[in-house]
């Protein structure tokens, strides 16, 4: 287990990158704490798999270096870095039994057979395949295969980190929950440093202690699921996390008041520092109150999703979403009010601190 430092890492798949746009990964400078469970979350093509492959050593970054526990490992091979990786599609050795699959990485490292047997028996119990130890791995279901590829990482007690590249893509929905909670238990029990790449926010938020949100080759925010929800640092985080995502409307701010069309919204505090670029106000649908007071809206659609309703409304010509409880009533002359606790102000898509 190790602490991973990513020092000014940039990566381009082109031989001679010049402009910023040539880089698949633009300047990542970040530390991943020893024993942390991290999720790299972002849409396809945001650079999250690139970053994972740089950590695992399958890719060499164009610039910058990578430290494991303060030691530079940029030039080391995947094998020497001593990490484990679980891929999108289960990778198993078809012709071997489940037991031999798990023993493979240990035997390759020349461990005595007694030691191998002890480790494999321990892990095979943890991943719940003890009764299938002598079966060929070929005939197993996708989730069992994925457990084997996870198990091949777990048997090596000295791994620096376990990396997951969208490991639940091919797993049935009901098994996803089971596997995810098992992963979390494993993390609690052994304290591995885990990095989990996904584009599914539910997966990221339930698995990780800290979620790394990536967008267009950059890390836009690292935080606990709570922080990402309450204080998105970038409008992208606001859109991407939450269902439906954050409402973002263009405003102009003077002191503690934001003007949006003909409406004035009182902010919890005045923005600190100067603001450049377009200014926007972001508020999650959970913090918008639908009632008889506030700003008048016209409702275009109501989606009933079981325990709550999503109301699509138009405020000053701009679409916003409002979440109303199951029994919440929708008034004849609807108005909305913004809860000050949920208001965030963005300048050039980045969050601005509001003073008290």
């Amino acid at each position, binding site marked *: 287990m190790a602490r991973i430092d990513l020092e000014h890492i940039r990566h381009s798949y082109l031989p001679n990158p010049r402009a910023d746009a040539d880089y698949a990964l633009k300047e990542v400078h970040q530390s991943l704490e020893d024993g942390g469970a991290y999720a790299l979350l972002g849409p396809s093509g945001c650079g999250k798999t690139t970053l994972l492959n740089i950590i695992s050593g*399958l890719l060499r970054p164009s610039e910058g270096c990578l430290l494991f526990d303060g030691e530079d490992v940029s030039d080391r091979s995947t094998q020497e870095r001593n990490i484990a*990786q679980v891929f999108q599609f289960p*990778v198993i*050795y078809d012709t071997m039994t489940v037991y031999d699959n798990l023993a493979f990485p240990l035997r*390759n490292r020349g461990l005595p057979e007694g030691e191998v047997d002890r480790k494999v028996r321990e892990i095979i119990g943890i991943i719940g395949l003890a009764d299938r130890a002598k079966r060929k791995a070929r005939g197993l279901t996708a989730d069992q295969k994925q457990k084997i590829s996870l198990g*091949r990482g777990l048997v090596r007690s000295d791994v620096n980190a376990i990396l997951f590249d969208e490991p639940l893509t091919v797993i049935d929905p009901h098994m996803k929950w089971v596997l995810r909670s098992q992963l979390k238990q494993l993390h609690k029990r052994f304290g591995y440093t885990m990095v989990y790449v996904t584009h599914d926010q539910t997966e990221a938020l339930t698995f990780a202690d800290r979620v790394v949100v990536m967008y267009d080759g950059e890390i836009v925010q690292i935080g606990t699921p709570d922080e990402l929800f309450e204080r998105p640092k970038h409008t992208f985080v606001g859109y991407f996390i939450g269902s439906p995502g954050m409402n973002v409307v263009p405003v102009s701010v003077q002191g503690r008041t934001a003007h949006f069309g003909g409406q004035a919204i009182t902010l919890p505090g005045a923005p600190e520092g100067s603001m450049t670029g377009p200014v926007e106000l972001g508020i999650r649908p959970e913090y918008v109150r639908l009632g008889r007071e506030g700003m008048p809206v016209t409702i275009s659609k109501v989606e009933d999703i079981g325990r709550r309703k999503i109301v699509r409304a138009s405020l000053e010509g701009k679409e916003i979403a409002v979440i109303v409880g199951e029994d919440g009533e929708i008034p004849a002359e609807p108005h909305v009010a913004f809860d000050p606790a949920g208001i965030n102000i963005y300048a050039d898509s980045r969050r601005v601190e509001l003073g008290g």
Partner: protein
Amino acid sequence: MQKTWNNKAWFLVLPVLLLVAFSAIIPLMTVVNYSVQDTFGRNEFFWAGTAWFEEVLASDRFWDSMGRNLAFSAIILAIEIPLGIFIALNMPRSGWGVPVCLVLMALPLLIPWNVVGTIWQVFGRIDIGLLGRGLWELGIDYNYVNDPFDAWVTVIIMDVWHWTSLVVLLCYAGLVSIPDAYYQAAKIDGASRWAVFRYIQLPKMNRVLLIAVLLRFMDSFMIYTEPFVVTGGGPGNTTTFLSIDLVKLAIGEFNLGEAAAMSIIYFLIILALSWVFYTVMTNYGAER
């Protein structure tokens, strides 16, 4: 929903049936006809029963040809399969080398059988052939016309040159279908080059290898043209394989009854072996 049954659809199969009848079934029946009768010309036939079959199965000549043919098949399989795998493993996976290698590999397969024979017949000649003359200049006593060993070496090298490409292309197809993640996982697991081959590449090539073995075995078991052009079955009978022997018997000696019986035995052997291979191939990997 009620399915509509209309037996008139069978008429649609009729043209194909007729075609197959003319191209395969009727000629085969002619052979059957010859194998159970004796004829002295003038279209007079006498019932011979199983006499021809008994004669073929009791003749040393048949079993000698069979032995030579099995030895030939075994030798070329033992060379072409490992060599094909080896070449496929070393072919590039991307870049300009891929089309170049594929075209080079496909070339020998595109040359007509008797041209292959002619090429090697000339190539190996000790008076004008590059190979034969070259070896002679080097002081090696090589002469495929007189020496049975040299004749065998020539025929085998020719077959390897002609057909290894097929094994290569089949194996290559199997290899490129392996996702990158397997190699990455193997790296992470610390697998050696041999372990990667043994546990990833070989299992993925299994099916294509079975096909390659089947095709190469069948083809070499029926080989005729190339050795016929190069050695004509000689020196003596040392490179007379089953089909060459069959032609000698039927056309050279005009022994139609015995040749027909031999054809049918030969055909049944091939049919039985094809069935064995097919069964193995379709059942392979079905066990869970």
